[in-house]
């Protein structure tokens, strides 16, 4: 169900006899209709933010809704990078939003190497090749 449902439509008619499906998002229980995608079921429940930018923590939601932009990627039953806009909800599905990840660089962008030579010079002492610019 959800608060944002268009239950009556002047041309398409009413939404009737839809099977309800229960799922969780970040541990909270929600209800959607059979045929909903994760994105539509959550939006119907007033949830827009599906993940945060892995580095900055800025909130993100659906953009294209056709599986191209990957802005809606979530974790479903522990599988990551699942597109919320392309994945139908299923009974007892456990969905988790994307979280901030450890940053691959330990310096701010202004201090990152500008050329490959510069990168090599700074990292030639590191055994693993070094990703910390």
């Amino acid at each position, binding site marked *: 169900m959800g608060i944002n449902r268009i239950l009556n439509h002047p*041309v*398409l008619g009413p939404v009737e006899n839809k099977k309800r499906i229960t799922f969780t998002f970040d541990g909270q229980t929600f209800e959607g209709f059979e045929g*909903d995608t994760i994105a539509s079921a959550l*939006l119907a429940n007033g949830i*827009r*933010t599906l993940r945060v930018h892995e580095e900055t923590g800025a909130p993100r939601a*659906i*953009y*294209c809704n056709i*599986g191209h932009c990957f802005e809606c990627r979530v974790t479903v039953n522990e599988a990551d990078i699942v597109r919320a806009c392309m994945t139908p909800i299923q009974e007892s599905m456990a969905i988790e939003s994307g979280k901030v990840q450890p940053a691959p660089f330990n310096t701010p962008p202004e201090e990152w190497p500008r050329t490959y030579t510069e990168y090599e010079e700074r990292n030639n002492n590191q055994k693993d090749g070094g990703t910390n610019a």
Partner: protein
Amino acid sequence: MLDVVIIGAGPAGLSAAIACRESDLDVLVIDEFPKPGGRLLGQLHQEPTGEWWNGIKETEILLNRANTLNTKIECGVSCHHIEKTETGYLVHTSQELYKTKKLLIATGAAETAAPIPGWTLPGVMSIGAAQVMTNVHRVKVGNKGIVAGVNVLSAAIARELQIAGIDLHSMALPVKNTVTKDHAHPEKVMEGLVRIAHLAPSPFLRFGSKFAQSSKVRDLATKFYPKGGFKMWGMPIHVRKAITQINGTDKVESVTMCDVTPEGDVIPGTEEIINVDFVCIAGGLYPLSELASVIGCPFRYLEELGGHVPVHNEQMETPVEGLYVAGNITGIESAKVARAQGAVAGYAIANEPERLKQAMQAVKKIREAASIQFHPQIKAGRAKIHRAYQEYV
């Protein structure tokens, strides 16, 4: 080995599958979306005759026919790679590896991004995203929104949102930047607006659109465009205002709108804050053709057809043996044209010359009768791509 794999279960893919099944070919249709119908599903508009074009009903008609003919349709399957072999194609998908003699790519179109500062905020989405949420999933994308981008597609979908009871403040241009280009240029946008004005309920606009076919009149109209915008279905359409910024901390809270010159440059000091909780960005459509490129199909860039288009002839064959294309991948046109093109591709694949001829005539007839044209030079574009095919045979 399958006779034909069809990528895309939209109007083109489904009608092609039907045509192939009529000749009892072993056909498999795959589509990434959980339900068949493609972008036809979301369509809902009133024809000039007053009749409603309901994409869900149109999809049902195609599906019923496909099901009667026992057509295999697999949804929720993504194709990410295709290989050409001596006998046909290997289609790599998220489910299985399919072997097929022939391949039809009917992947449709995607929306061109028109980035505006703040566009990553939750509540900003492509206009097509809003269409699917509204008409297919029956979910309100917000309480009050604004549309950034004035074109054939955005006007049609804005109307659909209104019909569903969703409040739209107005439609305006995206701010001019290196990406938004023509979409942010009032004179260029005016050209497009003139092509849809005949659909407006206001006789004044319909009348005006006839005169505005001339570029001089159009430039004058852009110059003296009313401050309050022209209203279509009670909603102001602005071509001399642009959305310069989308504001909010965790979600959309408002947009900043500015007046712009006839060239799209922001006029300083005209900022206005408009409270909305969603923004639809509409940068128009381009043919979704990566998969054809993966197999090495030659391409042409044709503005009239909406972008890079795989080279093909009127029978929907490409110069790559056994590879066919149909629908919006061949150029941006209506779902009706796509559906008719699908039948052409299907009969070409099934090698049914008589039906093929009829289907080709049907495409032309439907194109002639179209109430909306995505590009005024569509026929010239079609002729160019068909000529390009001759270079490869």
